[in-house]
């Protein structure tokens, strides 16, 4: 059942490297990560790759397969022709540490700047929220932090200079998640615009296209955030929430 697949894998570190050709055995049902692991176990024991769950749950194994940002553990070999060369390269937006492993610290820095959840005076055990009111934020909390969306977004993909002022779709969505959380009392609309660069986003939806969790980042998080920023309470769920007094918005919250 197995066959020999042709692979080209980026090898290198410290800003230098090249695509190297390999031939590797592939068996029924395998994914790209299996092939990479077989390479490690046979001819390239030092091939660096980040992974953890091998089940699409941890968001560690992000890379670009034939130029497309993907989780290697969820990319089945059967999606390629047997004679096709499969090219695996590291995420382009982040500096390469070695081979397929990139330095994703940009993402952790941005995460630290988003003001945390603020539940106000409600005591643990006393939160009461309806399922319909939490569903929006729950969708965003499915995020496995693979950072493929941030890798893809053209605002920073080839524009290092924008990184400082742009948190990327992942963390703009985090802002949206907190804004739509029925029990959160902070107001992050102003900083979304001023500090996290919501205005850079021109809703191309490329982030949504690559999200392995199929989160509708652009439609459900970014566009509603833009509308909130201009003060139009558009999102019907939250509009309802604010009508029935669930959402108490205090004064503007500064960047953390």
């Amino acid at each position: 059942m197995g066959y020999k697949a042709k692979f080209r894998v980026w090898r290198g570190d410290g800003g230098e490297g090249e695509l190297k050709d390999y031939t590797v055995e592939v068996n029924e049902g395998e994914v790209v990560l299996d092939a990479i692991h077989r390479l490690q176990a046979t001819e390239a024991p030092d091939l660096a790759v980040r992974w953890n769950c091998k089940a699409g749950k941890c968001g560690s194994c992000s890379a670009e397969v034939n130029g497309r940002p993907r989780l290697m553990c969820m990319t089945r070999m059967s999606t390629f022709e047997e004679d096709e060369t499969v090219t695996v390269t590291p995420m382009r937006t982040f500096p390469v540490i070695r081979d397929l492993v990139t330095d994703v610290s940009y993402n952790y820095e941005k995460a630290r700047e988003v003001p945390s959840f603020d539940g106000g005076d409600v005591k643990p055990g006393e939160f009461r929220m309806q399922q319909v009111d939490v569903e929006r934020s729950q969708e965003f909390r499915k995020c496995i932090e693979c950072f493929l969306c941030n890798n893809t977004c053209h605002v920073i993909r080839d524009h290092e200079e924008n990184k400082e002022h742009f948190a990327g779709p992942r963390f703009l969505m985090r802002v949206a998640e907190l804004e739509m959380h029925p029990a959160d009392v902070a107001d992050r609309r102003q900083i979304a615009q001023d500090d996290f660069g919501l205005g850079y986003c021109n809703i191309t939806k490329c982030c949504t296209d690559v999200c392995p969790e199929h989160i509708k980042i652009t439609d459900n998080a970014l566009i509603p955030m833009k509308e909130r920023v201009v003060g139009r309470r558009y999102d019907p769920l939250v509009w309802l929430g604010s009508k029935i007094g669930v959402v108490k918005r205090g004064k503007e919250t500064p960047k953390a």
Partner: protein
Amino acid sequence: MTEIERLQYDVVVIGAGGAGLRAAIEARLQGKKTAIISKSLFGKAHTVMAEGGAAAAMGNVNANDNWQVHFRDTMRGGKFLNNWRMAELHAKEAPDRIWELEAWGAIFDRTKEGKISQRNFGGHQYPRLAHVGDRTGLELIRTCQQKIVSLQQEDYREFGDYDAKLRVFAETTVTRLLKDAEGKICGVFAYIRETGKFVVIETPAVVLATGGIGKSFKVTSNSWEYTGDGHALALLAGASLINMEVVQFHPTGMVWPPSVKGILVTESVRGDGGVLKNSDGKRFMFDYVPDVFKDQYATTEEEGDRWYEDADNNRRPPELLPRDEVARAINSEVKAGRGSPHGGVFLDIASRLKPEQVIKRLPSMHHQFKELADVDITAEPMEVGPTCHYVMGGVEVDPDTAAALIPGLFAAGEVSGGMHGSNRLGGNSLSDLLVFGRRAGEGAAEYASEVTVTVPESEVEAAMAEALAPYDREGGENPYAVHQELQQTMNDLVGIIRREEELEQAIEALGKLRERVANVSVQGGRGYHPGWHLALDLRNMVLVSECVAKAALERQESRGGHTRDDYPAMSPEWRKVNLVCRLASEGADGFVELKRQEMEPMREDLIGLFEVDELKKYLTEGELPSEEN
């Protein structure tokens, strides 16, 4: 001379899963300067994979639930091998730990009243698992991660530095705990995966929260992180492990395609109505209800089905028996030739729920089968079989403070032992992480306030020499080959059903593997070198495997996650016995020594929570409460 970075912290937590993060939060809240070390990136520890939920008797769905009922279920599930004090603390404190998560921003699924919803799971009398669809572990990790960020934001406001009091060392692996001349913990030795550079952190208090050991087995639901590091680090530092023979094989792992064999299929599938069938289309679990559980499970399909609607007046279906029972039943069906085409049995949710309900309640399972196996679970049954999932055995700890038996060492989460007895109930791990993570953080902080330490240079040199050894050896074996053989050995000889001769064979094979591990070699640089990482992990896997095999040979009975073909019955005499592993002499070439240790009798008020008739199934005559009460 290789350069070493040197740092000082009050408390060092090894592990960034639920237990580690909760411990670190607590230590920081107690004012301690705290470091978290993790092999993977922040937010990606194994806990993210947990699906079904976290068990806590909040009574949101069935108001009859309370800590006593939860305690009873936990003891029954563990077949009374549990450390009862841990089971008690766990049952009492779990609700507060869940509510606290909500106050930190977690968003659980809701009941109609707007409270946290709770779902049914095997062995739990009432719906008890707080959950978010089937990605509860992700919610738990993300919430703790975000709580840590919020504490770092506070520190930033106060000190101008996010890392002032709480710092995460991601992708960093600890290879040794360091001890001073008095035998106290005084620090840890680690390498940074990215660069291969070494770090020594001086600290009086270390919390082990390193998770489990599944990567020593071939078919497992566990990730690469599960190489038993914490278990081995504890042993090497002179601490003890208890009941390492009890390993949970989850009944439902994927069996096809081969590359995903072992990946978990959550128990929520059965909690939400899914049923197990053999190749004759029969719901075989009705044939496998053991005597101790006869009164609590339905005897007909009709009754089992009614239970989902009316749990107060019907008994639960046997698909929801504790995991050890279901795993053995599946094993027997397959052996009897009634398995599915790829060597499992069928798990059917398609004929039980409408497609949209399946997608709503089990989104990750739907996704996982579609992407990885081309199976649409809303239309066809899944094929499933047992997979190595969880180790109940672990570091012997004091229940209240999580302190191990050497000064300065604490342990919480899967790496600790005792809480779950011989079999863990689903959902009891996530709550265990929070309850004992918090206690360990508190215990470590308290201890750190009283003790100061200095790291002796000799300890550092020895640790460094050990870490560099695979580079010094030339022409040694490839670590991947040795790992594969270890996994095969454990799978074949120390798996779900065990026998004396096979266990003896395993112990012999492990002795040889240990020699081979001492001889693996790697070449190249030290920056992000997975071959080197594995070479170092192998020491831990072999050590821990030896504990499992030796304890499995010693315990001559079958109980929970330890099934002996040659001793199929549960023995009240053995129930009283904890098997304790230590290293006979410190250092990687010490050998594992086993001791039998009598369990402390259960406190009277706790034993009073059970009917005497039930206790008779587990306890010896002498342990039973006198008849008049």
